[in-house]
Every structure is written in structure tokens, then in C-alpha cells.
């Protein structure tokens, strides 16, 4: 049974993040928080953020749903800690560009941690939404003041 291409989607790192999601604990009094849902599959993401000065200090990230959504949310939570809102926005841009087909350059790669593992999702257009759900929550949660 030829599952090569399926393996491109479900890489080890993805299945690993799905099994042991990072930063899963809910933060009780976050500086900001957001919730996003994908009505088509019932997937949900909750994010809580605490900035200290201009850097993200703590993140809570809970995803319900498919592997792609769970893994992205976990990877995202790892990648954003310690970054400024500006850097986070840049990261979001890099990720979206990657999903639209542009491979990240070296500089971007440095900031993306495990996220490049999600490249295979591009071959499954209907699943791209799953990889973007947590980013839409992130956008809503980013404090506007700190730009």
C-alpha cells in the first residue's frame, strides 16, 4: 500500500506534537486570549497569551480536532514564545506564504522551529484550513496596542 504521500502529510514530528502537545495548560488570567473554530469540521483552538514588556512570555494553546490542527497549534505555541508581536506577525506571514507554496528562506527557517514540517499539508488543499486555524486565533489574540 503506497502511503508515501500520506507520510509527507503526517510526518513524525506532526504525529509527535499530536501525541504530546506543548503548552497545553490553560492560563488563567491571560493578558489576551482568543478562540477560533472551523465550522466545517468542528475543529477548535483556544489561545491565551501573556506578554512581559514587549515579548511573549507565556502561552496556553489548546486544540480540539484533527492531527493537523493539533500539531500546528502545538508547534505554533513553541515557536512564538520569546518573540515580539512584530516577530510573531512576521512568523505568521512566513507560515502563510509557505502554505501558499513559497518555501521559507533561511532567515525565516531560523524562526519557524518545527513549523516547516507542515509543508506537506500544501498537497491537501482542503486541509490547509486545519493548519491555519490556530493562526487565526493568534491574530485575534495579539494585543493591538503593541505593534
Amino acid at each position, binding site marked *: *500500500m*503506497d*502511503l508515501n*504521500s*500520506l*507520510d509527507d*502529510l*503526517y*510526518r*513524525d514530528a506532526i*504525529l*509527535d506534537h499530536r501525541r504530546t502537545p506543548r503548552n497545553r495548560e490553560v492560563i488563567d488570567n491571560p493578558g489576551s486570549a482568543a478562540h477560533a473554530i472551523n*465550522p*466545517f*469540521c*468542528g*475543529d*477548535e483552538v483556544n489561545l491565551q497569551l501573556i506578554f512581559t514588556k514587549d515579548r511573549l512570555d507565556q502561552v496556553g494553546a489548546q486544540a*480540539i*480536532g*484533527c*492531527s*493537523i490542527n493539533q500539531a500546528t497549534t502545538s508547534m505554533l505555541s513553541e515557536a512564538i514564545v520569546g518573540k515580539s508581536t512584530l516577530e510573531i506577525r512576521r512568523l505568521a506571514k512566513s507560515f502563510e506564504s509557505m502554505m501558499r507554496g513559497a518555501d521559507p528562506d533561511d532567515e525565516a527557517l531560523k524562526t519557524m522551529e518545527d513549523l516547516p514540517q507542515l509543508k506537506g499539508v500544501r498537497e*491537501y488543499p482542503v*486541509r490547509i484550513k*486545519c493548519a491555519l486555524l490556530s493562526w487565526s486565533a493568534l491574530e485575534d489574540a495579539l494585543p493591538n496596542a503593541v505593534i
Partner: protein
Amino acid sequence: MATQAASAQPSLDVARIREDFPILNRMVYGKPLVYLDNAATSQKPRSVIESLVDYYENYNANVHRGVHSLSMEATDAMEAARTKVAKFVGAETDECIIWTRNATESLNLVAHTWARAHVHEGDEIVTTPMEHHSNLVPWQELAIAKGAKLRFLPMTDEGTLDLTAVDSVISKRTKLVAVTQASNSLGTINPVEELAQAAHAHGAKILVDGAQSAPHMPVNVQDLGADFFAFSGHKMMGPTGIGALYTKREILDEMEPLLTGGEMVLQVTYEKASWADLPMRFEAGTPNIADAIAFGVATDYLNNLGMDNVRKHEESLTEYALERFSQIKEFTVFGPRSVELRGGIISFHNENLHPHDLGTYLDRQGIAIRTGHHCTMPLMGKLGVPATARASLYVYNTEAEIDCLIEAINGALRYFRNGS
């Protein structure tokens, strides 16, 4: 008609039926297509596809007002299709059938016309917890607009309606009972006749969502006691873009149109208009002529198989599938266990294998199932799941395809348990 075919043809020759469906030759990722998403839309037999080609290549024209041959031929064919569809659901006359785009438009048509005129503040609309959004949201909107109340018949754990509650829920405040004949998420077949009697006993009307029943079992709206019956062509071997609303003649006579304009008027001045006869009054603008004709051809095809036979085949296939599913311990299967109480729709769920991941995995094996809430979000809440995977059967499906599904599900379980 169904009965005749049944006696002539005690069991269906599914291999031969499959030859009528060109798409079943399709390969997906190098595997033969196993199409188990029939509740979303059915595939189409060659005769239906050919009727579209025939129409456009030979007699395409606008209907109803033309004195030229093409227009007369198109009109005759479209009205003959209306007769076929009317007969298929047992309507008293052709005029009781209004063409719509789909079941959703049919349901909305009742909400925006009859119900808007007859449901008032304090009135109640009774429905069930297993309705498709299309038979729920229009009633929510109406209830909000009118200050009316939406009430739900309770459901058993098995996913059937709890009929002991009928007398306490349906009352003289009830103006409309809106209920699906067959659930697209659970498979459940509801006892429409009994609900119709309860509704009528209190002077209420009953609207039946037939989107999942008309394709799969013999239906007679008069026997059911339905005042309204909504269905979609595309789920019963017809093309997309055509559906129908059956309305009891005496109700239709008093119903005001929703859409106005060409074809539906009798006389128009610059100030005002009067309405044409039934059913044109409800069909503003150029109808979906080609697809209406093809919908008629789809009912020919189904009649030819015999709806009793279709139902029988699906019953036995469902029995087989439920049996096979019971061997996979990891999955919960929703809906009634007895095939008498259900259609060929099998929703299943496993905590640790999200339907989306399963759907993608199965697609790689050429197997098309649906994953998600199936347009029944509140029901998902009741079942305590965000979404389910759903395999839905039709007359061209086989036990071999069920085997293929089960094998692939086991493969997915292994794949996601072990990682790549």
C-alpha cells in the same frame, strides 16, 4: 410500479446497475473509487446524463410562452417530468409539485410563505433534535421574527424519537411540525404517519423533510399525511440544481409566492400584478428546465429498479455494514441498531482518530466518506462529539466495498497509532 418491478426482479443485479454509472469506473490515487458519500449527493446513471445532452443538443428553449417547436417540446418535457416526480412521491396532482433548487429552498419556501402567514406570537413549531440545518435554521429565524417558540421532541439514546412525549410536546399551540423522515446523521427513520396524526389532531400542519427518504424508500405523501414534503433531485440520481416541494393542493391554493417576476404572473400593470395559476405562481423566472427533465429521468431509473428493491438492498447492505463495524471495538456507531428503523447511513466515531484524519487516509485508498457535522451541529453536541465520520450507501454499493472500507479503517487505526 415499484411492486411490479419487485415481483419481476426479486433481487437487484448490482453489478449490472453499476454499469449504468460511468463515474464508478473512476480511479482515485490509483484505486477504484469506493463512493460512500451518497447522503451528500448521489451519483448519476447514464440515462440522466444523456437526457441533459439530449436537451441541449436537440430542443433547448425557454418554456411556457413559445409558439415554436423547440419551446413546445421543452415545455412538454418539463411538464412530463413534473408528472413523473409527482407520481414518484404520490402527489394528488402535478400542480402540487413546485420546482426548487434543492430541499433547502423547498423548506425555506414553506417558512417564508405559508408559515409566515400562519405562525404568530406565542405559537409553537415542533421539530426534532436530529434535523439538518436546513430544517432547523429557517424555523429558528421564523420563531425569532414572530415571537413563536421552537420545541423539540425528545430523542432516545439510540437516536430514535421518544414517542411517549408526543402528547406533551404537540399541543393546540402547535402550528407546524417540521420533521425529517430519515436522518442524514443517524440514519434513523422517523414515524412520520404518527406525527402527522398528532399534528392534525391539533389542527397543525406537518412538513416532512424527505431529502434522505425519497431517494431510498417508497414514499407516498398522501399515505404519510404530509402537508409539505421537501426533497432534492441530486440525492436521488438527478442532477444538481433541482429539487421539489410537494404541498397539499388546498394549502397551495392559498399560499402567496415568495419570488416574483416573469412566468409567475397573470396580469401586470405599472402599479401591480396578479398571480398565474399553480404551480407557475411559485416558479418565478426561467426554470431549471434541463435539470427538471433529468430529474424526471432519474425517477424513471429508480422506478425501474423498484423502490422496494432499492430499500431491500440497502437494508441488507446496512445490516452487513453494522455487523462488520461491530467488530471494530475502537469505534462508536450512532443510530438505531435495527435496520428496520434506519436507512443506510452509518456515522461512527473514535476519540483518538479525528474524522478529518480518517477521511484523508481513506481518500488515499479511493474511499469517499464524509467527515464533519453533516449540517447537524447541535446533534453533534448531543452526541458529545465534535464531528463524525459517515459512510452512506446507495443501491450501487456492494458488500465488497464495505469490506474495503473496514479494512482501510483498520489500516488507519494502525497508521495513526504507530505514527508513520
